[in-house]
């Protein structure tokens, strides 16, 4: 499967054509999901590559985001004696915005680029054509398992990111700066709501971001010109397009979910 190349010189026309082609590609992917069930082992293998292999960077970044957030909040809130609320603010900020958004940005840089580069190189070395010739549908065997793996991995990674961020906040706030442990947790549990913050914030947003990043990564891989330069550009486009899409979608989702 190769999407039609966008025509025209106008950058707006080209962008719209790209979005349109990407939408058609999504329909192709969704239609191939039933066929991809026979390649369940490939989906699990991809889940390992895009999920488990991204765990280290997600956890380390989550830890530092929580730590730096707590430091900044403590510095601001201490001016009017509100440091006891800092744990609560860390949790709300991480669950509602930073967790899903930063996880998605990291996921695009770590897993999205590797998906695009891998598929692009498979195209450049005729491996996709070889599958077609062996009567193996490359959309069902290559694209859909990677898309599903990204979709499943993102919420799980986001949960890990949020947990590590709260742990980092606790480490700095309670262990280092001396906020009371009971106050830290009780304020947090009093304010954080399962539906608003966990379901809408962590799960729904990360699921949407996982779908968008995986779709862009797979689409760019499948439509890249089969040259080394083409693969390099496609990899860059995955990061750029994913980052813009994540931030734009975050605004839209937040506006609707608030």
């Amino acid at each position, binding site marked *: 499967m190769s999407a039609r190349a966008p025509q025209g010189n106008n950058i707006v026309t080209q962008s719209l054509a790209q979005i349109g082609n990407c939408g058609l590609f999504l329909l192709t992917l969704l239609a191939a999901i039933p066929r991809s069930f026979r390649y369940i082992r490939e989906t699990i293998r991809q889940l390992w590559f895009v999920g488990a292999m991204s765990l280290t960077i997600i956890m380390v970044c989550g830890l530092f985001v929580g730590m730096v957030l707590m430091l900044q909040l403590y510095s601001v809130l201490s001016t009017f004696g509100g440091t006891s609320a800092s744990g609560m603010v860390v949790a709300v900020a991480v669950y509602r915005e930073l967790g899903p958004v930063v996880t998605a940005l990291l996921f695009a840089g770590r897993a999205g680029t590797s998906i695009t580069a891998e598929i692009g*190189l*498979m195209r450049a*070395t*005729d*491996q996709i*054509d*070889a599958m*077609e*010739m*062996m*009567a*193996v*549908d490359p959309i069902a*065997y290559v694209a859909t398992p990677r898309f599903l793996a990204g979709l499943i991995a993102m919420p799980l990674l986001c949960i890990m990111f949020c947990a590590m961020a709260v742990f980092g906040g606790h480490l700095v706030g309670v262990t280092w700066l001396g906020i009371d442990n009971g106050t830290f947790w009780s304020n947090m549990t009093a304010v954080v709501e399962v539906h608003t913050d966990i379901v809408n914030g962590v799960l729904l947003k990360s699921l949407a971001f996982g779908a968008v990043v995986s779709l862009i990564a797979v689409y760019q891989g499948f439509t890249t010109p089969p040259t080394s330069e083409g693969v390099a550009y496609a990899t860059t486009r995955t990061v750029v397009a994913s980052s813009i899409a994540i931030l734009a979608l975050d605004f839209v989702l937040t506006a609707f979910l608030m």
Partner: protein
Amino acid sequence: MTEPVPATPDDSTLVCIRGLTTVLNGKTIFDALDMDIPRGKVTAIMGPSGTGKTTLLKHITGQMRPDAGEVRVDGRNVPGLSREALYKMREGIGYLFQNSALLTDFDVFENVAFPLRQHTALPEVLIRNLVLLKLQAVGLRGAARLMPNELSGGMARRVALARAIVFDPQLILYDEPFVGLDPVALNQVLKLIRTLNQTLGITSVLVAHEIEAVRQVADHVFLIANGKVVAQGDPKTIAQDGSPWTRQFFGGEADGPVPFQYPADDYAQALGFAGAAK
């Protein structure tokens, strides 16, 4: 000379192409091309670079659809097949890619086993025996656990050939099988093409530029240029055909019907001497 092509093929024809017309990016690649590829023979398709030899193979496998015309493989009109029917047909076709196209995640054994695993539910022991049988046929049973990046060009080509014949296809398409091979590897591939054709009765179509290799292995040669078959016949005698195309191609002449210069604007004008000529 180009012989007239009968309107309907007989049973001895496996691939029948009639009126094939393809235009890519405004350039006519095929202009009502007719061709009959005989069953059980080795047929070579030759021609200058860029004449659409690989594109022709893609039409035979249904990877590309023509703008007009018919491509029939064993009686089935390829452009009219549904996706399922096309995939079913491809199970009976082996395709050797120019760069081998081995799956880089898998070792040699798994590459050859890949089509079997995808299309059959054979027990593991049977898959193992079939794969080893095919690897033995191409002389690489001992390399079963090597990864593709550990293979030389000739070895990779032979592994790809083992993969292409794992289903005992009725038709194998070879896209530039001799490119980049040293004389030893080239002779090994030549021998394999001939042996597979003779022992399994496989119809072979190969796209190649190597005139001497084609003389050794092919039963029939098509020379295509300008979107048509410009000559065809026995590989040992086609060079004496007498047409300017065969004279240039088989004689290796730098200029002729295929011009040395790519079409361009007036040379003097491009150099800014247009006024001086007056």
